[in-house]
């Protein structure tokens, strides 16, 4: 078995606020293997962004109470000094964000912003850095990269800006790229292009990629493994096939069941997941999903379910017996969607 590139163990990120302690991430354990693409799926407030911002060191102990371990290439990133972390950030682990328009500085040229990233970690001349920046722009598929490097972000289209962000993130050949909702702010037609670029570059750069999204469609084709998050915990983990064809958690059923399909007639009303997203201050006892779960029983309200594997690496955090899950899915959920 290969060594995981990133291993997160029992990560907890709690924010003290005037209204109470917000448990944004509450016991997260997962791995990212070298060369794989991991999809992290969940609704707003599930903790998916917060967990990776903490991995990057962009959320620190000044803002939140952080527990657990984040092991990257043999080091616990939560224990190393901020200066060391700064050298890892951008060079070994990179992150791109949701809205490329606001994520790029409006007053600096795009080429300058990319060169800046390079020169923060390597001692090279401005000219060399610019050449590398232009090369990166070319690699992400921006035509006339030399001209474009001297333009400002507002002169780029949305898709181009995101490509520029990807170029910036990959300019130092990181081992791990974290893409936080990379396509959410883009047109549908552009979304596919961006995801394809990420795929291609993952191979070219031999990196691992984490795609954080709330859009199940985005991850379907591009991810090797998926983890579904809810209320700061992972509720299901598996390959894309596992999650889409054999899901074992009522939340995943709800997600899949609530997707509308363009190619079917709409005979019935949509099936949203009943109830509201949980408060992260007053998290429901036991399984956090229990107030909304159609299959809830007594144990769910008391015991927190552990993420246990059901077959191979496919794991779900649910008290329902496996046989019941398979039956329910086959009879009710699959029939409905």
């Amino acid at each position, binding site marked *: 078995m290969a060594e995981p590139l990133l291993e997160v163990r029992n990560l907890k990120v709690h924010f003290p606020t005037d209204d109470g302690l917000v448990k944004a991430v509450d016991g997260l354990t997962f791995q990212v293997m070298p060369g794989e693409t991991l999809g992290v799926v969940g609704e707003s407030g599930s903790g998916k962004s917060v967990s990776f911002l903490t991995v*990057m060191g*962009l959320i620190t102990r000044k803002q939140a109470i952080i527990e657990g371990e984040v092991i990257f290439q043999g080091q616990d990133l939560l224990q190393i000094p901020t200066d060391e972390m*700064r*050298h*890892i*950030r*951008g*060079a070994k682990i*990179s*992150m791109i*964000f949701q*809205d490329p328009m*606001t*994520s*790029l*500085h*409006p*007053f*600096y040229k795009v080429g300058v912003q990319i060169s*800046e*990233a390079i020169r*923060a*970690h390597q001692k090279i001349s401005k000219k060399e850095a610019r050449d590398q920046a232009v090369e990166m722009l070319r690699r992400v598929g921006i035509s006339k990269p030399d001209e474009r490097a001297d333009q*400002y972000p*507002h002169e780029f289209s949305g898709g181009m800006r995101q490509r520029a*962000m990807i170029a*910036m*993130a990959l300019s130092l050949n990181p081992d791990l790229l974290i893409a936080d909702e990379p396509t959410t702010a883009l047109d549908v037609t552009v979304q596919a292009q961006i995801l394809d670029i990420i795929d291609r570059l993952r191979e070219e750069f031999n990196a691992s990629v984490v795609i954080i999204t709330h859009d199940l469609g985005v991850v379907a084709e591009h991810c090797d493994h998926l983890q579904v998050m809810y209320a700061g915990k992972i509720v299901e983990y598996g390959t894309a096939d596992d999650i889409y064809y054999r899901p074992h958690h009522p939340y995943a059923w709800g997600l899949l069941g609530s997707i509308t399909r363009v190619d079917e007639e709409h005979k019935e009303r949509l099936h949203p997941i009943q109830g509201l997203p949980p408060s992260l201050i007053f998290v429901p006892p036991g399984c956090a999903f229990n107030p909304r779960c159609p299959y809830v029983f007594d144990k769910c309200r008391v015991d927190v379910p552990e993420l246990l594997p059901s077959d191979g690496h496919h794991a779900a955090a649910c008290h329902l017996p496996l046989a019941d899950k398979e039956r329910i899915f086959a009879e009710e959920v699959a029939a409905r969607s």
Partner: protein
Amino acid sequence: MIRYIIRRLLWVCVTLLLITFLTYMIFFVMPPTRPEVNFAGKQPTPELIAEVKKQFGLDKPVIYQYGLFVKRIFLGDEYGWPGLGFSFTSRSELKPIIYERFLVTLQLALGAAILWLMVGIPIGILSALRPRSVFDRAAMGFALFGVSTPVFFLGPVLLYIFWFNLGWLPGTGFYPIGKYGLSEWFLHMIMPWSVLALAFAAFYARMTRGNLIEAMGEDYIRTARAKGLSERRVVMKHGLRASLTPIVTILGLDLGGLIGGALITETVFNLPGLGSYAVKSVFSGDLYAILDVTIIASFFITFANLLVDIIYAFLDPRVRYT
């Protein structure tokens, strides 16, 4: 851009015409409406009054006088260009007087500006980086004091403390460098600079703090940190760069406004600048002196407006004028 500038310059002219016209009208409507009597000396005879009236050009219709005035501004009068006329009170040409006074006001304004930038902006930055800390609260308290304390109060208080009591600084008055040397000039300017700068420093500190806090919450700051840049670089090159643009704009407007507007400071510290001259001229009914100060002040304000708009386009690449 050039077309925009030309359009704006035309508007500057229109504005100045309007302002001077209004000033003329106000002068002839408000007392004293018979300047020729005031300036004819004690117990003037009717002949003398008529003579003075003619000398001042007041025997012509008001509109005609105004037209003449406008023409002279653009084309010059018997004293040179621009035609600033002559003073009723001193019976001498105004141009050198105005020029001298303008220089004094300029020294006051620029010195104060340098001071308030050097004090206000760093305080604003430090406050923004440590919001709600002891330093921040103290700094914003100082800011509140600074904007609330009027110059006519603070000026005499400082004079009392530093000149009258402690004797550390000399008293009021303006001592030009050419005649009295650098040290004398500087010592006499410290208090007026400080008093004038205080309110602005406070305002700029608050503004810098607010802008920087807002800028530091933007997404591109998160990107900058994600790139692995040092925190210093993130604050100075990314945060500050974005928050200084409005400050540059306000600075231009403030400086423009100070040219005619520092009159309280000038009066308290006995500095012969344009502001105190304006006050003097209004009280003595010296028409052309009033007009000249009005024109210069208005010109600087409107021109500063145009200048800061142009500068803004250079600072913020998203702004383009057509």
